[in-house]
Every structure is written in structure tokens, then in C-alpha cells.
């Protein structure tokens, strides 16, 4: 049941990516990163351009440098192999750093086709509950749509907004707020 819902959601999101979807995260307007290899050729996302075999661009670190990806990305909170990405206050646009991190994540996800990701959108405490839930949704969808654009199949990803309900750092200071304005990637095999 839920899986069917996720398929429907991903199809809708894929469609919105292709067309003139609403509220495009600004990330997709940046220079596109070199697309990673396609994980499957079934064409789940329709006519997205996903060349099968490209060289990594200079701004992408080699995947296998110095160990496995899993080791490289250990340290993501709550046991996730994928590090959190961070946002500006009251913003859901992807920073260049966030894009770079997501490019790593995309490669990891493409190398682990069995893994599924729940993309969680979080906010810091300096906001109200309802708007923060909307903002968390925007953040998580910005991250997911960027991963989609990098070739990760939509049916492997689900978006959940937690608003300000689950801060990773409960303190009330600038450092904690910066850590809490995040998208978190919960991975299940």
C-alpha cells in the first residue's frame, strides 16, 4: 500500500521535473554536475537524459579514493551512511556545498541499488510549527529532486518533513541552529 503510494509520488515528481513543475528548487538552475551512471535503464523517469558512461568532472571526488564509500561517509548522524546537508535560515535552496554532498550521495545510492532512502527535512527551532513543517517539506523535496536529477530512481526515495520536531542538537545557539536546518538521509537496505 505504502509502496504504491511512493511509486505514485515519484512518478508525479518525475513529471514535475520534466515539465514546468512548481517551485523548482534553485539547485536545478545551477550548472548541472556531471551525471553519474544510470542505475537502471528501465526508463522509470521517462525522458531524463542520463548518459550511461561519463567521466567524472573535476569537481567530483573519485568515489573509491582511499576506501569504500561507506567508510568515507560514516559519521552521518543516526548511523546513516550519508551525511546531512544544511540550509540557510528560512530557505530551502541547495547551497553549493549541499549540492556537492548530494552528488556523493547519488553515487553511493547508485552503487547500492538495494538501498532505499527516506529524505527527512528539518528546521531549527526559530520558527513556528506549521510553517516549519512546510519548510521541512521544501528542503527534503529540494534534496530529493536533486538526487532524481542525478539519476537516482524516485521509487527508492521518500520525503518526510519533521519541521522543528526532531532537532539533532537541542541547544539554543547559532551552532545548534545551523546543524538543525538540515536534510537527513535515513537508509534502509
Amino acid at each position, binding site marked *: 500500500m505504502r509502496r504504491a503510494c511512493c511509486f505514485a509520488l515519484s512518478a508525479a515528481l518525475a513529471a514535475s521535473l520534466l515539465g514546468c513543475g512548481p517551485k523548482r528548487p534553485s539547485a536545478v538552475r545551477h550548472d548541472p554536475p556531471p551525471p553519474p551512471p544510470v542505475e537502471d535503464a528501465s526508463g522509470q523517469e521517462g525522458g531524463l537524459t542520463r548518459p550511461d558512461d561519463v567521466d567524472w568532472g573535476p569537481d567530483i571526488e573519485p568515489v573509491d579514493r582511499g576506501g569504500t564509500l561507506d567508510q568515507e561517509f560514516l559519521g552521518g548522524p543516526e548511523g546513516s551512511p550519508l551525511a546531512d546537508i544544511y540550509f540557510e535560515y528560512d530557505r530551502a535552496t541547495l547551497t553549493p556545498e549541499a549540492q556537492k554532498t548530494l552528488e556523493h550521495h547519488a553515487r553511493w545510492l547508485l552503487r547500492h541499488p538495494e538501498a532505499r532512502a527516506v529524505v527527512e527535512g528539518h528546521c531549527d527551532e526559530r520558527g513556528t510549527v506549521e510553517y516549519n513543517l*512546510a519548510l521541512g517539506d521544501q528542503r527534503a523535496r529540494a534534496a530529493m529532486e536533486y538526487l532524481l536529477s542525478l539519476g537516482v530512481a524516485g521509487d527508492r526515495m521518500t520525503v518526510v518533513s519533521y519541521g522543528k520536531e526532531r532537532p539533532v542538537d537541542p541547544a539554543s545557539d547559532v551552532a545548534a541552529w545551523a546543524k538543525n536546518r538540515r536534510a537527513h538521509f535515513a537508509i534502509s537496505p
Partner: protein
Amino acid sequence: MTRSRPGLLLVTGAVGALAAAPRARAQEPVRQIVITGTQQRLALPDCVPEAGDEASRQACETVTGVLRSDLAFQGLFRFVDESLYSALGQVVPDAPDFEDWQSLFANFLVATRARVTGETMEVELFVYAVDSTQRILTRGYSGRSDEARLFAHRLADDVMALTPYEGIAQTRLVFSSDRDDPDGDGSIKELYIADYDGHNVRRMTVNRSLNILPAWSPDGSTLAYVSYRSGTPDVYLAQVRAGQSLNLTGSRGQSFAPAWSPDGRRVAYASSRSGDMEIWIANADGTDHRNVSNNRAADTAPTWSPNGREIAFTSNRGGTPQLWLMDADGLNVRRLTRVGSWSDGAVWSPSRINSEIAYSSRLEAGTFEVAVIDLETRQVRQLTTGRGSCEAPAWSPNGRHLVFACNRNRRWHLALVDRLGHQLQTLDVGPGNSVYPDWEPRASRGGLTLTRSAAGVTGRTDATAGGAESSGTDPWSRRSP
């Protein structure tokens, strides 16, 4: 003998009340407004135990204290100073000496007596107009002896029924709390119900996930709330008594911030079910979901006007989150708030006298405060200040108070304040963080049996209607269709 006091209005029986009421309201219960204005002085002597036993004495003590507290909370009355009662000796509830009370400048006398017999308790209430020495209300109740507070709340609402305002003492609050989250990592919030004064807290949900943003249906039978129990935030409807629940939105995107239409037939909510965050309206049976905001910005936190024709909501379409208004069909969108850098969580007052919306606003200094905007003048008044950060207000059924949550010293607690920002008080509803309260729109608890009832004044109409708040219109408020 009769001193004419401004604000005292005695209506002669039901005839006078009916004549004053427009025909269209004939189906509403006839109310006999006796106590008007805001400066009537009430005498509330100690409840008299009918027998000398300890149980009756303790029950009376509770009834006295809670009744005084309930009536004081409304801010409508002045009271005879408690220290003066002892000088008068014990009152005879059904035959008071009016000269005593006249000498204390009481306008109304509220006398009670109680008797506990085993597990049963009986309480009687007598209300008198001291000036005219008339008894204007007699009530008797029977119920369980361990529910003395409930008796007192009922008596308070009976007294409030003599004023232009609906009593709220029997209503309850629902709120979200992490007190039963063993890890304290924010992964579990359950819903709890408490009396409006914070007593009698009971847990409601037991699903060990995040349960937030409860909203009571207008008839009090059902709670709409947001639960993460299936992974994503969905809007559920739960019957308060039966405990059965329905997933209203299905797991399609994120859905939250439910708000009932005043007739209870529809629920507005915020959802990303179509892609971006919009205001949706569905029938309360889960059919006919429609997107009414249809805008690329993030739209959230809907609230209905008391007549059901308009919806206020939060949108960042102007750059920052602000309150906007639209017709309930999504047309005629216009911006409402223009001060502050962040406005959210609008709740429309149920009052038919005061056309206003309470909300959370960041006005200055970075903290959030509860504010109210007058819909006619567009003036904003800030109700809270210097209490940390306060948000998520909800109106009392008669529109005279608000409940909300404040974060002070790193703990969220509930607080009450009247609609002008006076008499702010913290509620103790137990450990942990308590957030996102909503106020039961009408008392739905049973438990007491009415054993004796007599209303009506055998006097004549005296003086004119008192305070400005009680003039002609239908002032007790809640959302009838």
C-alpha cells in the same frame, strides 16, 4: 430596598427573552441574561456541608475553591473579599439573609451546599440577586463523590449562563507532549487531554510516534490531528469516545495542520500531495480532496471564519511567511498581516462580537509572540512578551481567552491569557514539553445528573442593559451553522 445599579438587567421570564430575540434564532435555547456588565460584585461564600462528616466537608472545600477560581478566570466579575465571609457566619443557602450581603455591596449571591453519601455526592446551587432579594437560579446535581471538581465546573457554567457569555469551565484542552518519550530524542509525542485549568490530565494516543497539531471538531466528538505513525505526517480523525480513527489524507506527501469547518463537515489542511505545499479541503469522511490555494509558494496553517465563508492561512508568496485571506473556494486572495517578519498559526476567533484572528508572530528581538489582529481595523496587539517564545494559540469557546505554548528555560509549557493580553497564567499539565494545545469547543462530558432545576425571576425588568459587551447581538458564540 432596591438600589438601582447600572448593569443589572432582570428579564421577566421567558417571554421577555423571546421577544428580544429575532425570529431566526427561535430554535436556539432561550437564555435569560441576568448578569450583565463587567463590574457586578459576586458573593461566593463557602459551600455548606449538609452533614458534618469529613467527606462532605472536603467535597465542599473543593467546590468552593474551584467555583471561585472558575468565575474569577472569566474576568467578568468583582468579588466580595474572602476574608469578609467568616464575619457573617455560615450562610443558609436556600434562605440567605440579604441584609448581610447588601452590607457587603454584593450584587449577586452564589450559595452552594453539598452532601456526600458513600460514593455519591449531591450539590445544590442557589443564585440570588441581592438588591431585589430574588432567587434567580436553583440547580441540584448528583454524581460521583470523587468528581467534586466536575461539580464545581458545572456550577460555574450555570452561573455563566446568566451572563451574555457561554461558560467554558467544563471544557477541556488537548495538547501534544513528549513526556512518555523514554529517549527524549523528539521521536515520540502523544496527545493528552486535561481540564481547561490543567487538572485531570489523561493520555489519549498510544501509538508511540509523533502526534501533533490536534484540532477538536465543532461538536467535540472528534479530534483531527497529525500523526507520523505510518512514516509520513498524515491527518487522522479520531472519535474521542470510541477511540476509532481514520486516516483522512492517506500517505500522499506531507499532510498536516487540520482545521474544521464551522459546520464540522469539512477539514482544511496543508499538504504536498500534489507536489508543493497547498491548502486542501476534504469532506470529513475522507472524500473530495480539493486544492484551494493553488500557488507555487508554500501555503499552510488554514483556519476558517466562524461563518465558514473565508479561510485565513500562512503563505510565503510575499517573501516571508505572512497571513493571507481567501474565500473558502480559493478565490479573492488578499494579504492580511504586514508587520513582523514571520506570521503563522492563525486561529479565527469564534466570537461574533470580536472579529479577530490570533496567531504567532515574530515582531522583534527574534522571539515569537502570540498576537491578535483586529479584522476591521487591521490593528495588531501583542499578547505575550518576555516569556521566551510563545506560539500556537487556540481560542476558548466563548472567545474570551487563548491557550498557547511558551518555551522558557528550554521547556515548553501551556499558558492562558485573556484576549486583551491580561491575566497571563501558566498551566501545570505535568512533566516534559507540552505544545500545540486546542480548546474543546463545547463541554461534552457527562457524569452529573440534574436533579433539580428552576430558573426564572419573579421580579420585573430593572434598569437597562449594562456593559458594552452585552448589547443586543447574539454574544455567546460558538460556531452554530
